[in-house]
């Protein structure tokens, strides 16, 4: 669906060097701290910035050669941009009808009603949460083959987030060939939705893993100095100094469970993995 192969983009104080792939039927997450390059990667994928090197392919085509018809197959949410807020949902739905052959106007307006979004008021008057809901409903409204969602749940309360994640799950269930690339700073959203995750830091992809593997096989070891000295560290990815000794991230939790039965070993969640990958040191 989407393939970024050694895509590079340089700014004065930042350089993106990114390779990632979104496969059909997959929900792929892009995680990383603020300023890591998530939005730049999204913009490079969508052709909003000119890259210095590498290749972006969408639907098997060079992204520079995408036609407007191809672009109509992509639903997009950008964190910091949307339709003019001086328009109303009614205006926007008329524009969408004319732009997208697959726009499902009735369904879209029904969903707006379901999420309590007034159709005749200017978007400018909406709360942050209402604007986030509208952006996502628009991306979902035209039977896109792929969604590219940059922080789509930002500003939403827990209940609204869960509703929208359900809609994303339904979207994937409707057609097994569909795909989503999503970024979010809320790891719970990604854990429950994504099939695989990329971690980006300082413009570089530092980890790619399937979510199931990450949750099953990754773990955090809590060891004191002596335990650390006697530890087989071949499967330790990162180390972080703590008051009790070290916190260690491994992608072979079972190995340590079997060989060090007395050691404190915890399951890792996405937040923990991200934190350790970013803040921890390599051995």
């Amino acid at each position, binding site marked *: 669906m989407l393939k970024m192969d050694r895509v590079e983009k340089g700014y004065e104080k930042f350089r993106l060097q990114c390779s990632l792939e979104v496969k059909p039927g997959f929900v792929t997450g892009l995680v990383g701290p603020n300023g890591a390059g998530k939005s730049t990667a999204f913009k490079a994928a969508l052709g909003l910035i000119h890259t210095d090197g590498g290749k972006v392919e969408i639907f098997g085509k060079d992204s520079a050669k995408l036609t407007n*018809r191809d*672009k109509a197959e992509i639903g997009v949410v950008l964190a910091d941009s949307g339709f003019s807020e*001086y328009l109303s949902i009614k205006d926007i739905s008329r524009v969408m009808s004319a732009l997208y052959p697959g726009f499902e106007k009735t369904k879209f307006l029904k969903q707006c009603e379901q999420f309590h979004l007034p159709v005749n008021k200017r978007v400018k008057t909406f709360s942050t949460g209402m604007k986030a809901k509208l952006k996502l409903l628009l991306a979902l409204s035209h039977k896109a083959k792929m969604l590219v969602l940059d922080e789509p749940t930002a500003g939403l309360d827990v209940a609204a987030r869960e509703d929208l994640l359900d809609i994303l799950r339904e979207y994937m269930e409707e057609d097994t060939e569909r795909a989503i690339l999503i970024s979010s700073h809320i790891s719970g959203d990604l854990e429950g939705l994504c099939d695989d995750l990329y971690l980006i830091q300082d413009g570089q992809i530092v980890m790619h893993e399937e979510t199931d593997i990450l949750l099953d096989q990754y773990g955090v070891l809590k060891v004191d100095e002596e335990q650390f000295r006697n530890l087989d560290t071949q499967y330790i990815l990162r180390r972080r100094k703590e008051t009790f000794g070290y916190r260690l991230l491994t992608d072979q939790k079972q190995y340590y469970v079997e060989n060090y039965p007395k050691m404190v070993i915890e399951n890792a969640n996405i937040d923990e993995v991200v934190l350790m990958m970013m803040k921890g040191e390599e051995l």
Partner: protein
Amino acid sequence: MKGLLLKDFCISKLQKTFIILIVIMGAVFTYLWKSPSYMVSFLTFIATLFVLTTISYDEFDNGYSFLFTLPVSRKLYVTEKYVFALLLGAGIWCITTALAAVYVAVTGAAELNTDWIMSYIIYLGFVLLIVAVTVPVQLKFGGEKGRIAMIIVLGGMFLAGWVIVKGLKKIGMDVEAVLDKTSSMGIAVFLGIWFVIFCIILFISFGVSVKIMERKEF
């Protein structure tokens, strides 16, 4: 294209109080000056300026980023801006010129002949010339810087025109005689020349605008 035009008409609709005010001013000045020329030239000019307003709205709040994720290429976006300006400018020109013709016919304020219509066609030409200059400037510099750039460019155009006329006179070419000769050519030739000149100018302006948008990053 249709979607973008709809969007721009929706945005223009936001200025309805301003539009009503301009129309009232047009009617009042026509009545006071006993001439509809102000109504035609001013309303046509204001109508074409709406294209600049829509560009400002598109640019506002980082709007371009999302706009170009829609099934809209940069070339299509630029094309739509020119089509919008032409539709609005030519549309308002047709309506106001028709009203002016009715006014002149009813009041007898002027003679309805080819000279009369030609003077109105020249208005339209100049307004479109302004569009050809202002659209690429607005696309290049955006809202704030655009205003300053616009004043410099329009001032520069008038200065360049003055220098050219002076220069031609200096080398012995009588510009006024050339213009007189043009207007005595007959309406078909006159319109033909104007049409070709404006097509060339608009074509160059369009090409420059496409290049500007293609180089932009959002």
